[in-house]
């Protein structure tokens, strides 16, 4: 049966799903898409585009008016709502932890609903708390004693505890301050990669969508699908003005995140604190004992051995096998005019901005886009 083979590769499938309310408002209009297995699919769009409604129809928190939703090959409407939901992880904006229960007991919610035995439920809860970086002492605390970021980690742990193959996340990071949000997003990405959970996530933040999504569904007001594609494709080939406008001004620059290319890397002779700057170079790169770059020094600005206060910081570091965006950013932000390239934090060499731009200029790109370095 062809449909069976088809379902193996997609964990969640929406077929012509429409949500119409009694007063005639259409929240979601004939929406179809597939969330591939083991990947993150992000629903993004302006407020009122029906993205949260679409997400909540997957675990039947909202019942669709028309259309069908398949979860792991099964028609969601054929299952009991409570049983369906126990098999799906669910993370919401403000975590929604139970304030009267300890962190441990919050995380055990789904295992308890699934009637796992006590020991197994507790071991599993401790395991997932460890996964989200809240091991040990945190288990005994109450949600009111945690920061917003910690609460959201507990929220993720709670969703993972029942070992779901599918997870739904409704604006999981939007109530968290930007610095912590970055950290949580990065942790979340590596966690997802390790666990291979299929995730459908809602956000209003296109940057978050591009950062986290393997597939992005852009919805417009009235709940119709404007575009469904990979993030690089979305940036490079927006379907129409709405998508182009929503994706934003810097999309050309952001698109570089998805382009990989070989850039000539020049070996650099590093110095350490206490050394003198290299006599033949205007700028020398300073590394610590582990060859981790810690800054640049300007030859003419330093007298005697290099001290901490001579260091000029501020340049970002490019990963050796990273994206063009990383290379360009490292080159543009370096005080010396040379971008620093590292591998696992260790100095590899430096690169030149002109050469990065040259490669960008040769790289294939859609017509009509302006990319940094395009104008001469």
């Amino acid at each position, binding site marked *: 049966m062809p449909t069976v083979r088809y379902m193996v590769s997609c964990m969640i499938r929406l077929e012509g799903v429409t949500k119409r309310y009694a007063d005639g408002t259409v929240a979601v209009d004939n929406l179809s898409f597939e969330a591939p297995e083991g990947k993150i699919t992000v629903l993004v769009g302006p407020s009122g585009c029906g993205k949260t409604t679409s997400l909540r129809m997957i*675990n039947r*928190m909202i019942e669709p008016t028309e259309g069908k939703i398949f979860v792991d090959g099964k028609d969601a409407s054929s299952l009991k709502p*409570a*049983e*369906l*939901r*126990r*098999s799906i992880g*669910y993370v*919401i*904006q*403000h*975590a*929604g*932890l*139970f*304030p*009267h*229960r*300890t962190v441990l007991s919050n995380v055990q*919610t*789904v295992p308890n*609903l699934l009637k796992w035995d006590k020991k197994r439920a507790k071991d599993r809860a401790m395991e997932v708390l460890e996964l989200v970086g809240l091991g040990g002492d945190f288990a005994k605390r*109450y*949600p*009111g*004693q*945690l*920061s917003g970021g910690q609460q959201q980690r507990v*929220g993720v742990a*709670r*969703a993972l505890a*029942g070992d779901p193959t599918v997870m*739904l996340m409704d604006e999981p990071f939007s109530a968290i301050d930007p610095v912590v949000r970055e950290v949580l997003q990065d942790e979340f990405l590596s966690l997802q990669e390790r666990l291979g959970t299929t995730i459908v996530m809602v956000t209003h933040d296109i940057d978050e969508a591009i950062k986290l999504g393997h597939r992005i569904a852009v919805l417009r007001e009235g709940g119709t699908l404007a575009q469904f594609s990979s993030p690089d494709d979305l940036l490079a080939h927006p379907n129409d003005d709405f998508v182009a406008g929503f994706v934003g001004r810097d999309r050309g620059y952001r698109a570089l995140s998805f382009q990989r290319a070989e850039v000539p890397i020049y070996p650099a002779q590093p110095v350490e604190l206490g050394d003198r700057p290299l006599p033949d170079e205007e700028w020398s790169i300073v590394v610590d004992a582990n060859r981790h770059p810690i800054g640049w020094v300007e030859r003419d600005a330093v007298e005697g051995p290099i001290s901490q206060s001579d260091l000029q910081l501020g340049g970002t570091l490019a990963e050796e096998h990273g994206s063009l965006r990383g290379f360009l950013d490292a080159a543009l932000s370096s005080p010396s005019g040379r971008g620093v390239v590292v591998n696992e934090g260790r100095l590899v060499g430096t690169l030149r901005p002109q050469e990065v731009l040259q490669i960008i200029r040769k790289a294939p790109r859609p017509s009509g886009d302006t990319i940094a370095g395009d104008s001469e």
Partner: protein
Amino acid sequence: MISSVFDWLSTPANWEGDRGIISQTLTHLEYSLIALVCAALIAVPMGLYIGHTGRGRVVAVSIAGGFRAIPSLGVLFIAVLLLLPRLRGELAFALPSLIVLVILAIPPILSGVYAGIAEVDPAARDAAKGMGMTGSQVLWQVEVPNALPLMFSGMRSAMLQIIATATIAAVVGLGGLGRFLIDGQATRDYDEMAGGALLVAALALLVDFVFGLVQRFVVSPGLTKTA
């Protein structure tokens, strides 16, 4: 004046016997607890239903408001007049007193339960449902435990009003601490009246203290502790 009230309170003879302070206090407490339990049996399920479903909020508000406006003495006399021909003995007076106290206690309990449930963090409720709790699991595992502080404050305020008002049972000839007020007035024994009033206040405070202890034991520390 104060010392003579104290004299009345410290006279051992006033404490003893089936018309003494101890016996009347126990009777008073008995009426009060029966009234509280009856009121709770009516108001708690109503409050849970209204808070959980969000249906019938108007009913709750009008009951809470309207019942408060009912004059206790008026209800007592009407109930006695209506029930006297139909009931025998002490019950003909006890039941009307109970009705008055129950009517009095319903509004605070109802609003405490309803408000407690309605004020549970919507995100917690949404998460509970989204993780696969059934309606009754959401109610008993999430809504009720979180509503307990407000439920308790409703109960405690109901109990204070019941204890204060249970004195009116004495108006229709029943026992309780109200006896000292009524009898004292009849015999112009103002020490007895003031002593009775003090005893009512002391009983109310004591019972409230006990409820407070129970509350501390029953309510999750997560609802009182914060970082």
